[in-house]
């Protein structure tokens, strides 16, 4: 019945979940929530510490939580649809693995190098998207082509990267990283660091700029907010976060292959996790990662069903809960609180 789109900006942000969840609670609450979650997760090895498989699954879950937090920063805070989450992590992982094994540089340094490289790549993509005024769709397609191209580069440069069969990463295999329990705590710490970083970033002037440009890009630009710069910050920081996590994974796991970082293997689950948890919320990535790692484990023996389940979930989620679980819970909780207050004598 209605005609031309008068204002699609509000529609898009409705789909993406406009507004940051971080702004609505005080810093204290945010940090408290992070602390509580951190303590709760720290206790997990008590139950599953004996099983190497389960610990592996848990660490993978934490890794994906890191990925999702980074993607939340890039997509949730600045609306840049980077469909290359896996690729950025892969850049970090392969850069660190190759330079440490080939050139003998101690892996903490190669990780810094790798993170720098991933930051550069992320920043460059943001810069390109801004310079060429690429909308969400084109940004998505361009980053997707990068993701696929990266995959092919890894497969093609067999001599350097090990190709399809993957790369065994020696650096780090003789440290605590290769044991059963410590990687869990290492990655848990990374998750906590990323979350705290996310809060601090959003409290700062950078976070303010993010909100301005999400709410109304034109108004923000007219008020003097340099959109380009803040998008590039988000892209670079997010890219760096992904690169570091990927590199850490390479040294902890001791083995990486192109399949570890593909679009289907990383980007799609991260997307599902973020949407489920709630784009732009603080805890959304954690909730999403936790739930889907658990579901993945339950469905592990039925790998085809997993694909079907992921697909069905994607559809159901985006149709019914575009705002995500965290917001749904929060509005449900505030509804309950309101009702309780009203019914008080």
């Amino acid at each position, binding site marked *: 019945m209605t*005609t*031309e*789109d008068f204002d*699609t900006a509000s*529609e*898009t942000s*409705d*789909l*993406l979940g406009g507004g940051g969840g971080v702004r609505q609670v005080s810093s204290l609450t945010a940090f408290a929530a992070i602390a509580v979650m951190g303590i709760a997760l720290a206790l997990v090895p008590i139950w599953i510490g004996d099983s190497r498989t389960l610990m592996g699954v848990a660490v993978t879950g934490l890794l994906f939580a890191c990925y999702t937090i980074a993607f939340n920063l890039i997509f949730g805070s600045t609306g840049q*649809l980077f469909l290359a989450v896996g690729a950025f992590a892969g850049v970090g992982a392969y850069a660190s693995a190759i330079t440490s094994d080939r050139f003998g540089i101690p892996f903490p340094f190669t990780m810094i190098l790798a993170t720098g490289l991933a930051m550069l790549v992320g920043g460059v993509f943001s810069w*390109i998207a801004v310079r*060429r005024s*690429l*909308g*969400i*769709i*084109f940004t*998505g*397609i*361009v980053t997707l*082509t*990068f993701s*696929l*191209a990266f995959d*092919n*580069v890894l*497969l*093609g440069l067999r001599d350097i990267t090990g190709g399809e069969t993957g790369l065994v990463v020696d650096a780090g295999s003789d440290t605590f990283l290769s044991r059963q329990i410590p990687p869990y705590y290492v990655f848990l710490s990374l998750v906590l660091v990323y979350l705290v970083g996310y809060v601090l970033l959003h409290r700062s002037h950078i976070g303010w700029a993010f909100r301005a440009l999400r709410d109304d890009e034109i108004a923000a630009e007219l008020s003097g907010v340099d959109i380009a710069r803040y998008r590039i910050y988000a892209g670079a920081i997010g890219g760096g976060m992904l690169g570091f996590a990927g590199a850490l994974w390479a040294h902890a796991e001791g083995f990486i292959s192109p399949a570890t970082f593909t679009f*289907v293997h990383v980007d*799609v689950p991260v*997307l599902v996790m973020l*949407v489920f948890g709630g784009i732009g919320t603080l805890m959304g990535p954690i909730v999403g990662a936790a739930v889907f790692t658990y579901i993945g484990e339950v469905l592990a023996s039925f790998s*085809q*069903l*997993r*694909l*079907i*389940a*992921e*697909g*069905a*979930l*994607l*559809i159901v989620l*985006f*149709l019914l809960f575009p705002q995500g679980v965290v917001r749904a819970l929060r509005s449900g909780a505030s509804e309950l609180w309101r009702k309780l207050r009203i019914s008080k004598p």
Partner: protein
Amino acid sequence: MTAVILDGILLGLQFGLLGVGLTVVYGMGGVLNLAYGQMAVVAAVVVSLSMSSGLPAGPAVMLGILAAAGIGLALDLTILKPVYRRRGEARVLLSLLLTIGVAFIIDGLLVWRFPIEALSLSIGGEPILVLGVPMRTGSLLASAITILAGGALILFFRSTTIGKAVRSVIQDEVGARLCGVNPSAVRTLILTLSGALAGLVAATQSMTSPVPISAGFDITILALLVTVVGGLGSVRGAFLAGLLLGVVNAMSSFYIGAYITTIILLVAAALTILIRPSGLFGEHA
């Protein structure tokens, strides 16, 4: 060299048809159907199954095309309804996400039920010489069908009333409605047609080389690249881009290698977006 270029042109025709199926759906309704490749694979599966139960090639191919068209129809009538309710970027995003979901579901079902690795039709016979190059019967048949389909498509869009109605919705939807065109009926038609095209390409492709069950995503990406290079929404652009990329693909695969070829195609699409987002052959922005 001639052989490679000929191969490239034939491949390009298929790429072109594939691209048209995806681009026309985008042009019509601002919808990116990422389950496109899966529709193609389903067609190939249906063809293969019907042939192994004794059906001759012709009817089997028809059945396959119908199956894919049916998926297109089903998609339009169900999943895409909430998508159409949104406008602009929100619509494209939602369509992208929902169709990825559908793609996963179909992929999962296929891989689960059909452990057959790849499907190919065997159309035997001695190779025939075309321009001094020996071509297998299967190849020739596939090319003939593709050329006929391409011609029929062009005729459809240029000359038929419905075809013009489709173009009108792409160019100015409000104008089309004012002329009495029902956009949602046209969209349903186009989505069904898009499925049929995907099915046709998969069926003809399996006449020359096997179509793996897991090829869905790869086919979608290929169609997306052709669409992007040709210009999102441009039918003519998709045809021409398909031909170009087909020739590039053939030459690159022959002279360089498989991975580089894929990378070249990907880079071509990325560069098109960066340099000329309306597409190399696109008619309108």
